[in-house]
C-alpha cells in the first residue's frame, strides 16, 4: 500500500535526511520525499498499520531534522 502525506521542511538537504529516516523506519518498504511539492509518499510493508508506522516515521524525522513536520 502506498500513501502520500503533506510535509513541511525548510531545506532540501533536510528533506533528504527525512527520506532516509523514513526509509529506515520499521514497516516502511520504501519512501520518497519530494522537497519541491512538499510531499512524502510512503509504501508500507504488508501487515503493517499505516497509522502506527507513520507515527514512528514522524518521530524519526523529527529526530534527524527538528524543524520538520509530517501531517498525518
Amino acid at each position, binding site marked *: 500500500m502506498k500513501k502520500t502525506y503533506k510535509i513541511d521542511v525548510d531545506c532540501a538537504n533536510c528533506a533528504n535526511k527525512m527520506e532516509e529516516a523514513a526509509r529506515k523506519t520499521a514497516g516502511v518498504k520504501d519512501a*520518497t520525499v519530494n522537497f519541491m511539492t512538499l510531499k512524502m509518499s510512503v509504501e508500507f510493508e504488508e501487515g503493517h498499520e499505516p497509522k502506527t508506522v507513520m507515527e514512528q516515521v514522524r518521530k524519526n524525522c523529527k529526530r534527524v531534522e527538528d524543524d520538520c513536520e509530517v501531517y498525518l
Partner: protein
Amino acid sequence: MQETIVSVLLAVIVGMAAGLLLWGRNEKSHMTKKQKKMLGRILAAATLLLALQLTPEAAFHTLDALVPGLGYGARLALYLADYLVIGSDILIKAGKGIKNRQIFDESFLMAIATVGAIVLALYEQSGDYTEAIAVMLFYQIGEWFQSYAVGKSRRNISELMDIRPDYANVERNGKLERVDPEEVGAGSVIVVQPGEKVPIDGTVLEGHSTLNTAALTGESLPRDVAAGEEITSGCINMTGVLKIQTSKEFGESTVSKILDLVENASSRKSKSEDFISKFARIYTPVVCIAALALALFPPLVRMLGMGLDGQWDQWIYRALTFLVISCPCALVISIPLSFFAGIGGASNAGVLVKGSNYLETLSQVKIMMFDKTGTLTQGVFEVNGVHHSEMENAKLIEYAALVESSSSHPISKSLRRAYGKEIDRSRVTDVQEISGNGVLAKVDGVPVAAGNDKLMERLGVSYINCHSAGTIIHMAVNGEYAGHIVISDIIKPHAQDAVAALKAAGIRKTVMLTGDRKKVADQVGAALGIDEIYSELLPAGKVEKVEEAMREKPEKAKLAFVGDGINDAPVLRRADIGIAMGAMGSDAAIEAADVVLMDDDPMKIAKAIKISRKCLGIVYQNIVFAIGVKLICLILGALGIANMWLAIFADVGVMILAVLNAIRALFVKKL
C-alpha cells in the same frame, strides 16, 4: 578600507531588509510569517552591528576610564547580544542536533565556526567580533533568500499547472449547484459555463462552444465542440454554455491523471540528483575532518618538527573558515529545483515528463524511432491529389462524392470531406455497386463510374496508371476517362520540419517503423527525410526492431520511440524512453509512455528534447560552478588567503546564483 566596505555593506543590508519588510505587508509578496520574522531579526541584527561598527573605539575607552573593564565588558555584551539576535535559533538547532547525534548538520557547523571565531577574538584580545556576527548574518540572509525563492518557484510552477477544476455545476431542481468534482459520478450531467474549466471528461449533450486547450497542450489553438462530441477535462470553455454527460469519475478524468503525473514526477529522481545527495553525504564530513586536520597538524608539525611557534590561532581560524564553506546547500537546493522547474516549464508547453530521470534520459537521446500512422501522418485518409483530370478538379471530386454518397466506406467519407458541401442525393440515380470494383451511377443524368483499374477495364475505358502511393480512384464520365483521385494518409503539416529540427538538435539517426505497405512507407519516409525505414511490420516486429537497435547502439546514446500510444504500448515500454503523442483523452498513452505530448504536433518532440537539454545544461552548470567555487575557497582558505568573509560570501553567493540559474529552467517558450 575594510571597515568602510563593511559599513557600506551593512547599510545596504539594513536598507534592503527594511524595504522587504515593508513590502512583506503587501498580500502579493506571499511571505510567510516565519520569513517576516526572520527578516525582522536580520534588520535588527544588521542595524545594531552597523551602529557598533560606527561607534568610535574611543567611546568605550572613556567608559573604561570611569570604571576599569566597563567599556570592554559593555562592548562585548553588545556584540554578544547582537550575535544572539541573529544566531540564537542556529545555536538551539545545533544543540538539538548534538542531542540527536546529527553532528554534521549545517547549523552545527555554523555554530562551531562562529562561536570559534568569537572565542578566538577573545583569546587574541583583538575585539573583532564583527566577523562572527557577519558570518551568521549572511548565512541567515542566504537561508532567507533560499526559502523565499523556493516558495516563489513552487507557486509559479503550480500556477503554470493550474488546471485543477475547483467545482462542477450540477443541475438540481432546476437550479445550478456548485459541487466538488469528486462527488460527481460517471454518467451525471454537468453544466459548464463560458469562462469555466471542464471539470470531468464526457460527451456534450447540448450546446456548442469553442474550447481553449492551452492548459493541456501549450497551444492556444481553439477547438470547436458541438453536441455528441467528446470533451476532455482541463479545457476552458470560451463561448457557449455546454451540457455534458460525464463518462468517467473525476479521479479517472484526464485532468486528474495529468495532475497526478506531474505532481509525482519529481519523486522519480535522476542520476544527477542521486549523485548530489551522495556527494552531500560525503562532502560535509570530509570537509569537517579536513578542518580538524588543518587545526591540528600544521601547528603540531611546526612545534615538534620544526621547533617553531605553533601559531595555533592562525590555523584554527583557517579551520573555522573551512567549516563555513562546508555546507553544500547550493547544490542540494539548486539541482532538484532545476528539475522541478524544467518539468513545470515542459508541462506548460504541453509536454508531460513523468520524472526527473526521464528528463535526463531525454537529453541524451541520439536515436529516434517513429511509428508512422498517427505519429508522422494524420492517420485519416484524405484526398491527396487529382491527376490527369479533364475537367476542374473540384468538379471531378464533386462527381466522385456524389457517386459514392450511398457508401459508408472510409474512402467515400474522405471524398465527401474533400467535397465539403452538403450532398444532394436527389442528383444521384441508378446507383450500381460492383463489389471489389467500384460504383456506377448517374449524376444529373450523366453516367459516372468511380472505382479501381478493374472497373475501368470492365468498362473498356483506357486509364492512366498512377505512381503515387495510396488508394487510386479512376473516374469515367460519360464513358470517357476523366482522370483519377489519389486518397492517402497525409503527412502531418510539421512532420518534415520536425525531422529536420531533430537532426539539427543532434539526433544521429531517425528510423520509421510501420505496419503499412512498403511503397507507402518508403514514400512517406523519403518525403520526410527519415534515415531508415522498416515497413510491413507486425507489432511484435516493431519490438524486435527496437531491441535490435538497442543492442547495436553505444551505451551512452539513448533510444527513443515515438508512437501514438494506442497500439504501441509494448514498444514504448521497451525503448530507453517512450514518447506518446496526441494523448489528450487517451489513458493508454499516459500509462505506457515516459514522456507524453498532449497534442499530436511532431514539432513537440524536438521541443521536448530541447527543454530537457536546457534543464540538464543548467544542472551541470550548477554542479560545476558550486563545486568549483567551493574547492577554490577551500584551497584559498587552507593557504590563509581567504578569510571568513570571503568564505561566507562564496557560500551565500553561489547559492543565490545557483537558485536563480535553476529558475531559468522554467522558461521554455522560446526553445
